[in-house]
């Protein structure tokens, strides 16, 4: 967010996996409209629970469709969830002498493979599909370590505690991390598309006008460009 001399301000609740892209998005949005934004970054589950108990968030940008759907069903969203981008899965390593590939996962030199918890994180679910596709899951299940969110999975990989790990393309493309480690992108057809959606929250104090502006901005050309830069695919 930045100071633009206007009193208008919205709070955007964002899932952890969008944390890199959202900063650029918000910058562009504020530049365009002068509306300031506060960012609250947390897990989708937490944000959902908080919104249901009246958290003062205006827009909820989730990492999948399940949580926005839940909010919509509870009557707290202005409209049904709308997909703004699709995430992509990568296999990433920090260890110098490892070249990431599916085949290496079964190698004895690999002790731990980090994935996000498939129960709650869409990237984890996608990683499991990939492993299933290669019929690897049974063989390497003992090597899997689970991060509670994509961020935590990243920490397992970055600290090299896990030699390899599945994460989102947006992470490895983030400016801070571009030079770190090596990664390969996994083919799209190996997992169900990771559809990320957004809802506009409906509560009394909501800044309807401004939040609508942001909501619309997310589907603008400018926003799509930013999202693409961060490795998301968008409907065009």
């Amino acid at each position, binding site marked *: 967010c930045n100071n633009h001399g206007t009193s208008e301000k919205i709070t955007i609740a964002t899932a952890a996996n969008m944390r890199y892209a959202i900063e650029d998005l918000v910058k562009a949005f504020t530049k365009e409209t002068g509306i300031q934004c506060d960012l*609250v970054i947390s897990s989708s589950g*937490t944000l959902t629970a908080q919104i249901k108990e009246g958290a003062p968030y205006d827009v909820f940008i989730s990492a999948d469709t399940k949580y926005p759907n839940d909010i919509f069903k509870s009557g707290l969203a202005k409209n049904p969830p709308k997909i703004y981008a699709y995430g992509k899965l990568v296999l990433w390593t920090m260890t110098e002498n490892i070249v990431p590939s599916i085949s290496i996962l079964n190698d004895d030199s690999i002790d731990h493979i980090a994935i996000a918890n498939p129960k709650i994180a869409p990237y984890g679910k996608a990683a499991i599909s990939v492993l299933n596709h290669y019929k690897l899951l049974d063989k390497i299940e003992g090597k899997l370590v689970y991060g509670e969110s994509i961020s935590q999975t990243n920490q397992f990989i970055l600290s090299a505690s896990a030699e390899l790990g599945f994460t989102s393309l947006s992470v490895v493309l983030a400016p801070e991390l571009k030079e770190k480690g090596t990664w390969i992108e996994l083919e799209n057809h190996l997992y169900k598309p990771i559809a990320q959606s957004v809802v506009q929250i409906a509560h009394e104090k909501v800044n309807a006008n401004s939040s609508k502006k942001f909501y619309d901005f997310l589907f603008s050309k400018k926003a799509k460009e930013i999202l693409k830069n961060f490795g998301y695919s968008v409907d065009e």
Partner: protein
Amino acid sequence: MIDWSPLLLTFELAAVTTIILLVISIPLSAWLANSKSRLKPVIETLVSMPLVLPPTVLGFYFLMAFSPNNAFGEWINEWLGIKLVFSFPGLVVASVLYSLPFMVHPIQCGLSGLPISIKEAAYVMGKSKLTTLFRVQLPNIKPALLTGIVLSFAHTVGEFGVVLMIGGNIPGKTKVASIAIYDEVEALNYGTANVYSMILFAITFCILLAVYLVNGKHLKKLGR
């Protein structure tokens, strides 16, 4: 580049929580130390129970309880005009409940370790239980009070799960240092996270060290 407001908020929260905990725990501990009631072990156990739930989950239950959608939250909101979710008072209430055992147990343990005759001597002098507690018993269990204060304070500084859930991470209002650090670590900005951690660490270290030094001098004066 450092945003100081989370740090300020943290120490404000820790200080307020510790003070409130002292106020609540002193009568509660005194009751526990004296009581022969059958309820006593039950209360002793209950005091520790908030600890056994993961903080975020505890925070989730607090969120449910404090929410204005709920009878209790609504009641607080209407009668006291305090909104407990996503507000500083809410953080305080949650932290107090969560850190209660760290204050209550040491004080109770200190009080029950004092020789009974000291208390009795004050009673016979006509001093009320309250006067005796504040002028005689508490001043003689300073190490126990200190333990309670240090544990509660440090625990509140590092508290994170409960605060995140109930506070909602709103900058300047409920975004305390622990959450800020967590955020930076999550964002893989280890540099900033380290700086925050070091500052938090250094300030807390100085506060606690000062407390222990003063305490040590005090005891030395006593000729111990």
